[in-house]
């Protein structure tokens, strides 16, 4: 009886597959169809349920669950932005890379510092915004030794009277927003095994979502959901290993053949390697409240030396959609199977309603991936509608929309004894963690990113718990054109760049878009810039004390006026040469980034200050 049933299911599956392929073939090529309708069908718009109207607060790094990083405040316009002036500044007392955006909730600004992860509450109702309280979590100093890319923190989140944040030494904490008292602390990651936590938690549906860092340390990646009230773990989904650990069950539907099968998280690795294979979750999580689904990406597989891990290395360098209640996977799409160059897939995922022609719209996710392609995917199924390069790529030919698979360029894979030159994009990708902003006013995505290529040689990496598991020598340099950074305004519907601004230094700061038709971002030598969201014309700039790698935000102050805040403090992977005083003579320093930013120590020094700007009264 059971055999018949299995047979029946197989037959049905085959019929479905054939029908599906047929439909797909009829529709393909998908891209021209989309392009034809781009002009008439209009702009992509933020997913409504995930992007409520602006209330003047800024309660999570991404601004909203749709990850727009868009402020609805419009007092500061293209006409008056030139008059912006400093309202107040705040020094954090730290000099490590300052990536975390401040939060503003009900006239209090919350500032999280890099290690030692102190949290300040500043009273915006008083002149000069003096601290209301300071929370010092005192994380272990030893954690700094296993944080691959500087002891950074990417921000906190506010929910229901509490501030939630992660500590570098592997703890998640909840702090009372009023008093600054710690409510709970949950130890999730183990620095003895090379795990740290640098990501900003996302709080949704009463759960705090936290993932680990350490893709360069031979750790096993996971995302955990904690009860926001108690800090107890509700579920924990690993990125590698058997299906029961990855939370792949009956509800899982892979968009493509390549992600179908049982226990791929074990079978796509050499025996046992999945236990130390990476796939960490150190980036951004988005949430669709309508379908109660979270979306997030997984990191590179480890070690970087690809020869030690033949196979697709599931479920690294791809995107998961999961049920927020149970953690069960809905689908997984692997952007970069068997990653060769540290092309993580942890970048921000923007949730939009996407026009597909004839006035029809689908719930989509759009994302500039580290491998250099801008993906448009149906977020119900994970299927790729388009994947176009937004930066310089010479190691991938494209994405096969039929199989969903990335097509690598043959002969560019580093093997022991043969270094490969001119790999574009370099290990930090066409874009690293620093998120883009999406403006519903222009319908454009503003992508702060990189133009770096590299030479790479690999050798056998030894696994020693708590030490780096890399096995690669890298040397990065500017890509074609000589500029190391780019800000691209990308039309996700027409799938092309509308304008590009070339920046000399790597662009490591996130972007902010506002209703005033302005986009804000910062450079590694400290210039905070405001540009016209339609043309890219520079409207205003201000030189901050250190380099900018942190995210600007916008909020409404107690006086009813619009403010812009930005952290200044160079560091992170790109700026470690300054904040960690690396020696620029060694091109392989900071996993090869040193070579690309040799001039940085002469141009900027370390710091940690929040700058807040407003129009003159």
């Amino acid at each position, binding site marked *: 009886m059971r055999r018949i049933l299995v047979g029946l299911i197989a037959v049905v599956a085959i019929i479905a597959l054939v029908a599906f392929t047929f439909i797909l073939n009829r529709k393909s090529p998908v891209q021209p169809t989309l392009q034809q309708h781009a002009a008439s069908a209009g702009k992509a718009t933020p997913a409504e349920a995930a992007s409520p109207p602006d209330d003047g607060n800024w309660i999570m790094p991404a601004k909203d669950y749709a990850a727009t990083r868009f402020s609805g405040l419009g007092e500061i316009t293209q006409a008056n932005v030139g008059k912006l002036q400093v309202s107040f500044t705040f020094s954090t007392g730290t000099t490590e890379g300052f990536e975390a955006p401040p939060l503003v909730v009900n006239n209090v600004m919350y500032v999280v510092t890099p290690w030692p992860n102190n949290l300040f509450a500043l009273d915006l109702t008083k002149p000069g915004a003096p601290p209301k309280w300071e929370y010092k979590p005192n994380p272990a100093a030893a954690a700094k030794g296993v944080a691959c890319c500087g002891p950074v923190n990417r921000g906190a989140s506010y929910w229901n009277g509490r501030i939630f944040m992660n500590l570098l030494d592997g703890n998640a904490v909840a702090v009372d927003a009023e008093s600054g008292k710690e409510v709970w602390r949950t130890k999730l990651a183990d620095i003895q095994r090379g795990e740290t936590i640098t990501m900003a938690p996302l709080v949704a549906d009463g759960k705090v979502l936290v993932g680990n860092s350490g893709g360069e340390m031979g750790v096993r990646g996971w995302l955990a959901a904690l009860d926001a009230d108690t800090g107890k773990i509700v579920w924990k989904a690993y990125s590698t290993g058997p299906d029961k650990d990855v939370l792949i069950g009956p509800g899982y539907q892979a968009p493509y053949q390549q992600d179908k099968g049982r226990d791929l998280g074990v079978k796509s690795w050499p025996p046992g390697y999945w236990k130390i294979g990476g796939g960490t979750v150190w980036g951004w999580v988005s949430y669709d409240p309508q379908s109660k689904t979270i979306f997030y990406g997984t990191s590179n597989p480890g070690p970087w030396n690809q020869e030690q891990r033949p196979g697709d290395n599931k479920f690294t360098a791809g995107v998961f959609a999961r049920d927020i209640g149970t953690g069960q996977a809905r689908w997984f799409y692997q952007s970069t199977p068997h990653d060769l160059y540290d092309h993580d897939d942890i970048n921000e995922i923007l949730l939009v309603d996407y026009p597909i022609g004839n006035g029809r719209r689908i719930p989509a996710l759009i994302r500039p991936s580290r491998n250099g392609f801008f993906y448009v995917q149906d977020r119900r199924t994970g299927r790729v509608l388009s994947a176009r390069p937004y930066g310089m790529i010479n190691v991938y030919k494209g994405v096969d929309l039929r199989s969903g698979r990335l097509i690598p360029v043959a002969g560019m894979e580093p093997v022991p004894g043969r270094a490969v030159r001119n790999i574009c994009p370099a290990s930090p990708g066409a874009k690293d963690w620093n998120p883009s902003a999406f403006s519903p006013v222009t319908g454009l995505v503003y992508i702060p990113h990189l133009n770096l290529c590299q030479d790479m040689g690999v050798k056998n990496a030894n696994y020693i718990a708590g030490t*780096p598991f890399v096995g690669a020598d890298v040397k990065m340099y500017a890509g074609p054109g000589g500029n190391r950074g780019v800000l691209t305004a990308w039309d996700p519907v027409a799938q092309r760049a509308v304008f590009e601004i070339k920046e000399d230094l790597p662009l490591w700061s996130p972007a902010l878009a506002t209703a005033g038709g302005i986009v804000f971002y910062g450079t590694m030598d400290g210039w905070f810039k405001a540009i016209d969201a339609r043309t890219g014309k520079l409207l205003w700039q201000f030189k901050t004390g250190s380099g900018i790698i942190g995210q600007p935000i916008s909020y409404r102050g107690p006086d009813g006026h619009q403010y812009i805040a930005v952290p200044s403090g160079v560091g992170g992977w790109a700026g470690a040469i300054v904040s960690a*005083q690396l020696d620029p003579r060694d091109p392989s320093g900071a996993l090869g980034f040193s070579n690309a930013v040799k001039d940085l120590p002469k141009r900027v020094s370390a710091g940690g200050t929040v700058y807040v700007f407003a129009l003159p009264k």
Partner: protein
Amino acid sequence: MSSRFRNSIWTLVSLALLAGCDREKSNPRGQPLAETIPDTSPDTVFPGDAKPRPLDPRAADYEQNAFAIAQGQQLFGAMNCVGCHAHGGGGMGPALMDSQWRYGGRIDQIAQSIAKGRPNGMPAWEGKLTDRQIWQLAAFVRSLSGQAPKDAVAARADELSNTPPQTQTKREPALPSDSAQQ
């Protein structure tokens, strides 16, 4: 005396001198005696006019010795030191090719840092490496800032020619923390 004969004598003399050098010493079978990491302080201030402990005389056997430095270089890759310190320029861990030493730049101080670890993330390797290996590693670390004789270091880099050969490494100035015994 023909010039050829004179040249031969000079060659023989140089060879004899070279043979007597620290550079050429090697003891691949190891010494039966226990080699211990000396209990050195990373500090330079000693109250009551006390003096820092003198440098262990065995240090020279390592830091001027081609075999020890080569072994140290091997270990520097194999034990993943390179993942944090790169090829001297640093990354997760501090640079080792410059003149700044948080915990002292004398070979015995470096050996101490390797053996005991340091609180900002340097693991303690005691028990994972033999003391002899720790000395060899410390010798290689010294060579990264050009402290080793040029005829004792490797003339080509192990990795994909990203770093200049160590024979070209500039010798960094004497360091405050080891000035007492340099």
